[in-house]
C-alpha cells in the first residue's frame, strides 16, 4: 500500500500527512509540477496554503499538472483524501460537491473538535469508531452547498462526518465536516486527521482514516 502526498508551493501539512500515512503504509511526496503519480495506490491532497491561497483557497492548485493526474486517478476509482486546503482544492476541481466559505467568525481558528462518524462503512471510515477528537485550523472552513444538494448528499450517504454538537465553530451547513463524491472514492475533510495520529501530540483518533484507506486498497486488490 503506497500513499502519494501532493506538495504544492505553500503546502504546510504535507510532511505531517506523509508521516501519518507512513504509519499505515508506504508514502512519498509528489511534486505539483509533475504529472507522474508514481504508482500511488491512494492520494492525499494536504493542508496548507497552496500558492499562497491567493485569488481563493485552492483555486490555483486545481490547475497544477499533478492535479490533472489526480482528476484522472479519481475518475478511474482511485482513493483521494483532501484535508483542509486539500478539501478546498478538491471542491475547486469539482471532484467534490459544494464549497468552503470563510468561517462565520471571519477568523483563522484553531481548536480541537469532536467529530461524529455518520457513515461507518466507507473506504474512509470503516476502521473508525463512532466519534473522533481531531484538531481543526482554518479561515475558510464553512461548508456550503445548495439546500437541494445537501438533501441529496445526506440521502446518498455522502456526508461522512459531522461536527459534534457545539463543535461547529466555522458555521458549516448542517454541521458537515467531511463529504465524499457519489462514487465514494474521493473524500474531503476540514479537520486534520494527520495531526491526530499519536497520543504524544494530543490524539490518535485520526489514524483510523488512513487505516480505512489501507483496508479499502488491500480489499480491492484481493
Amino acid at each position, binding site marked *: 500500500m503506497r500513499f502519494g502526498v501532493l506538495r504544492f508551493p505553500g503546502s*504546510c501539512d504535507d510532511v505531517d500527512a506523509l508521516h501519518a500515512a507512513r504509519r499505515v503504509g508506504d508514502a512519498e511526496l509528489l511534486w505539483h509540477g509533475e504529472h507522474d503519480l508514481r504508482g500511488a495506490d491512494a492520494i492525499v491532497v494536504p493542508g496548507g496554503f497552496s500558492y499562497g491561497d491567493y485569488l481563493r483557497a485552492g483555486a490555483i492548485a486545481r490547475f497544477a499538472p499533478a492535479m490533472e493526474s489526480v482528476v484522472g486517478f479519481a475518475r478511474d476509482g482511485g482513493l483521494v483524501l483532501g484535508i483542509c486546503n486539500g478539501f478546498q482544492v478538491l471542491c475547486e476541481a469539482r471532484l467534490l460537491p459544494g464549497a468552503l466559505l470563510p468561517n462565520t467568525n471571519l477568523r483563522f481558528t484553531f481548536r480541537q473538535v469532536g467529530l461524529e462518524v455518520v457513515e461507518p462503512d466507507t473506504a474512509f471510515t470503516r476502521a473508525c469508531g463512532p466519534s473522533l477528537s481531531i484538531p481543526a485550523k482554518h479561515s475558510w472552513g464553512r461548508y456550503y452547498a445548495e439546500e437541494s444538494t445537501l438533501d441529496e448528499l445526506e440521502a446518498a450517504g455522502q456526508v461522512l462526518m459531522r461536527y459534534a454538537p457545539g463543535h461547529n465553530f466555522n458555521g458549516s451547513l448542517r454541521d458537515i465536516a467531511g463529504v465524499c463524491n457519489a462514487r465514494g472514492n474521493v473524500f474531503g475533510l476540514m479537520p486534520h486527521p494527520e495531526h491526530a495520529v499519536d497520543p504524544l501530540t494530543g490524539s490518535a483518533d485520526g489514524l483510523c482514516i488512513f487505516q480505512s484507506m489501507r483496508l479499502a486498497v488491500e480489499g480491492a486488490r484481493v
Partner: protein
Amino acid sequence: MSECGEAGAAAQTSCDAATGPPSEPPPTLRDALALGLTGREYELICAKQGAPPNSVELAMYSLLWSEHCAYKHSRKLLRTLPTEGPHVLMGPGENAGVVDVGGGLACAFKVESHNHPSAVEPFQGAATGVGGILRDIFALGARPIAVLDSLRFGEPAPADATGEARPVGAPGSGTRARYLLDGAVSGIGHYGNSIGVPTVGGEVYFEAPYEQSCLVNAMALGLCERDRLVRSAAAGPGNLLVLFGARTGRDGIGGASVLASAELGEDGDKRPTVQVGDPFEEKKLLECSLELLRRDLLVALQDLGAAGLTSAAAEMASKGEVGVDIDVARVPLRERGMEPFEIMVSESQERMLCVVRPDDVAAVLALCEKWEVAGTAIGEVTDTRRMRILRDGEMVGDMPVRALVDDCPLYDLRPEKPTAPIYAPPAATLAGRASPRETLLALLASPNLASRRPLFERYDAIVQSRTVRRPEQADAAVLALLAPDAGSADAAVTPAVDGGQREPPLPALAVSIDCNGRRVAADPYLGTIEAALECAANLACVGAEPLGTTNNLNFGNPEKPHIAWQLTEAVRGLGEACRALGAPIVGGNVSLYNEGAAGPIYPTPVVGMVGRLPDAAQAGRLGFAQAGDEIALVGWDGGTAPSLAASELHKLLGEPLPDGLPAFDLDAAIATQAAVRDAVRAGALASAHDVAEGGLAVALAECCLAGGLGASLDIGETVGGDECEAWLFGERPGGFLVSGSAQALAALAERVPTAILGTVGGEELAIRAGGTSLRATLAELSECHGALAALFP
C-alpha cells in the same frame, strides 16, 4: 566640524566627481543629521572615507551606524553578559544563537522586536516581525519549528474603577490597545499559519505606559543537524553573490534609522517606512534555502532584514574578512527608476543573499526556478576588504568594510537612579474593600490574567507534528525532538506506539518567554532576575533544564540618565540570573527609544529560554489531573508571607509602584526548580505550575480550570499568620503548586520546603485561610477567566 562643515562641502565636489552619480547634488551635514547621524559621527565618516561620503555611501553609513544596527548605546553593556557554556554552539553575533540539544541536533533561536513598525501599522508590523525572525533561523540552515510572541499594549478595558465607560477613542478608552492587539495577533497568525510554523506560546501584558509605544517581540526556534550549521561569513574571492527571493522595491527605506532608532511622534507620516510581508514568498524562500543547503550548493547564507542589502552584504564581508562588489543594476526591481542608494537600503521582505562558487551558480539558479523564487547573481566576493557599489559597472560607492561595520562609535551610558517616581500609579479598577472571593474573580478577569484563549486560538500551534504541550496545557510549550528536515523523502519516521511511549524515549525541547515589566519598573535589577527565573520555572514545570537564553531589551531613550539606569540594572540582573541558572545568553536584540510625549515604557527585558527534557512522554501539565490527589506548595518558606508590592492586586487597587522589590534567595529558588524538574521527569507529579502573577489563589484557579477539577485547601493551618490577603495574592519568585500522591509529595519534601495545602476534587475551589474563606465554582472561575473574549469579539 571643520572637516565636514563648509570646507567639507567643497571637498565633496571632487569626491562626487569621482564616484557619485553625476547629476545629483552632493549630500551635506544637514542630510546626515536628517538621516539620524550626529555631527561628530558625520565627521568620523568623512575621516574614514578620506572625503565626504556621496549619497549612496551616506545612506549606507546612516543605517549601519544607527542604534538598531550598531547597538551603539548598548554594546558595552551587552559585553558583560555570560555567553559561553557547555551547550553553546554559536553565541551572539550570528543570525541567531545555537545550542546543542543532543542526538546530533542543534537548536537555533532568537527573539527580535518589531515595536515601532507595529505601533504604526500593527498587522504588517507584526507579520514582518515574524517573517524577519524566521529568516534569521533558516539563514543558519535550521528549519523553523516554532514561534512565540511577547506583546505589550496599553489598557484595553473601556471602563475605570467606577465602571464608567470612556468615549471611544479617548485616552484610556482602550480603543488603541484593542486595535493594536487585534492587528498584531492577526499579523502574527497570518504569517506563521501561512508559512507552516506553529505559534506555540507567548505572553501579553496590558499596562498604561505601553499605550503609545506598544511592544511586539517575536521569538523563533529552529532545528538542524549539528554538523550542517551554516555561517554567514563570505569567503573565497571570485565567488559570486546571489540574491534570491522577492524583488526589491521602495518599501521600508530608512526603517532601521528613521523608524527603529528614534522616538515615535505622529504615526501617519511614518507608515511608508513599514514593510509589507508575503508569507507565501517566504515559504518558498525557506524551502528553497534549505534545499540549497542540503545539496551543499552554498558557501554562506544571510538573510536581508533591517538595512536590507547594505547590512547583509557588509556583515558577510566583515565576518569573512573580505570585500564585496555589488552591481545594483543587476538587482531585480519591483518598480522603475530606483536610485542606487534606494536599492541598497530597501527593506523589502523575503530576500536572502548567498555566496556561491562559480561552478555551482547554474545549479543554484535552477533550484531557485524549481521553487519559483527569483535568483540573480548581483556581485562577487573580492579580497579588497572594501564594499564597492556599482551601477552598470560604474562605481557609485566605495567604503572600507571595517569602517561600515566595526567603526561606529560606541557610547557610554550615564546612568542615574531617578529621585522621583517615573511612572504614574495605575488607574484603580477594584474597590479597596473587596472580599477574597471578589478579589480572586476580579484578578482572573483582569486583562493581564484572563485566559489568552481568544488570542492563541488564532494561531496554528500544531503544524509540523512536534507539539506535545499546547498553550494552556503546561507552563512551557513542549516540542518533540523529531528530525529537523523530515521533508526529504527518505527522512526517518518515529512509529506510533500506544500511549505515546517510545523506546528509547523521545526527548523534547521546552520553551518559554516572559517578562513582567511592572516589576522591572519597580526594581530593574531584581525584576529582571525574576523574569529569567520565571522562564526557568516554566521549563521546570514540564521537566526541562535550561540550555540557553535569548533576550530582547525594550527600553526608552538611553540618552536619558534614568533610562540608562534601568538598562544598566536590568542587564546586571540578567547576567547574574543567567550565570546562576547555567543558561547563557546566545543571542538577542535591543529596542531603545520606546517612548513618546507621555513618557517611557516600563523597562521590558523580555527573556526567552530553551530547555530540554529527556522524555517527551513525561512532559508536565499544569492542570489538576485526578480527584483525591494532594496539593502542595513547594519552595516558599512558610515563615513570611509573599509581598503585595508591585503585585497584580496592587495594580487593580491603583497602588503606586514601590521603590524596589523584596530580596529573595536566588540559590534556593534554583534548588526548588531542580527538585520540581526531577519529580516531573520521574513522572511522580500529576501537575506542576509556578506561582506567578496573582499569587497562590490565582495559580490554584488556573490549575483547577486547566484540569476541569475543583480543589479544597486550607492554607491557614500550614502557613499561618494574619496576612491572609498577602498569602492569597502576594507575589514572590520560587513557589510552585504541584499535585500528586501523598508519597510523591513526601519525597519532594525531603529536598525542598513543601507544604500540603489540600486535595483535588469537586466542582469548586474552596480555600480557607486563617479566619477567612473563599469559595467559587468552576463555572464562576471559568466565566471570569474568559473575560478577554468580550474585549476581542
